[in-house]
């Protein structure tokens, strides 16, 4: 018998990620690490990781990383890539980070068409700080700062970053995938491959949003989370490729 699925060669051999059981961050990490492996980019890679749960992977992934301040990964990635075009630059960000405090940095990196790959983990809440409402929280979903659930009147609708970024001229690839089951994970892997290849070829900015689960703060088992995504989250955040400039 032959190994047909094994761990990414350069991630930790001794311990799993620091995430909670079933957390989508682990899945997302696996996917972009796989893409780096595929394109043989590991030794050129610079990963800009966020404040937020996504930062827990930093010793696990074994690529050169720089820890951004909350929300500022877009600016940091921009500048590193400009000044060091030989580096492969990924910015990895949560929804609190990318869609709340970092909105300006996100939009302007996209609008300038920086040659970076943005991986956006949308888990519909501020995971690390304990489940506060994010701009991406579902209507009706409860959060520690929206204890009777997000309401359209008070909080507005979940913010669709991918759609907004797709209105800009410069971005080359803007898409949304989900990470709650194998079928979707496979599609997400394809999307990430595409986004990575784009930077490899020097063609510009790509943005991959990944609908992800946070079992701990959603207060659901991973399996229940997967159902919640199917039944509720994907209604607010339709999957798809919003921009794909050849």
């Amino acid at each position, binding site marked *: *018998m*032959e*190994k*047909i*699925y*094994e*761990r*990414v060669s350069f*991630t930790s051999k*001794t*311990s*799993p*990620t620091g*995430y*909670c*059981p*079933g*957390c*989508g*961050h*682990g*899945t997302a990490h*696996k996917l972009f690490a796989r893409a780096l492996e595929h394109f043989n980019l590991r030794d050129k890679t610079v990963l800009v990781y966020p404040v937020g749960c996504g930062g827990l992977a930093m010793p696990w992934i074994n690529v050169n990383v720089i820890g951004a301040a909350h929300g500022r990964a877009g600016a940091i990635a921009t500048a590193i890539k400009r000044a060091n075009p030989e580096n492969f630059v990924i910015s990895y960000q949560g929804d609190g980070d990318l869609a709340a405090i970092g909105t300006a940095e996100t939009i302007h990196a996209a609008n300038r068409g920086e040659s970076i790959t943005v991986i956006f983990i949308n888990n519909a809440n501020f995971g690390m700080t304990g489940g506060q409402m994010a701009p991406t929280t579902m209507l009706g979903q409860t959060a520690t700062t929206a204890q009777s659930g997000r309401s359209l009147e008070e909080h507005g609708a979940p913010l669709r970053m991918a759609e907004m970024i797709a209105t800009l001229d410069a971005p080359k690839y803007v898409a949304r995938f989900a990470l709650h*089951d*194998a079928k979707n*994970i*496979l599609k997400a892997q394809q999307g990430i491959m595409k986004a990575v290849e784009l930077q490899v070829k020097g063609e510009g900015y790509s943005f991959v949003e990944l609908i992800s689960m946070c*079992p701990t703060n959603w207060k659901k*088992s*991973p*399996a229940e989370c*997967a159902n919640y995504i199917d039944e509720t989250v994907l209604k607010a955040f339709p999957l798809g490729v919003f921009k794909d400039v050849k």
Partner: protein
Amino acid sequence: MAKIEIDKEFCKSCGLCVKECPKQIIQIGRTVNSKGYNVAEQTDESQCIGCKLCAIVCPDMAITVYK
């Protein structure tokens, strides 16, 4: 002929592989790892078709698949 290997120290007992396996041959077992998690295990290797879905869904790359 196919089989999977689950790295006990990487498994966090999330149960996503259990949900995903088309043959329903994974369960959360009684073995507890050093972090206190009950580790997933394959119940019937002979039925495994090597579809990799379990490994694909595992957030912690705990599963290796052979075929």
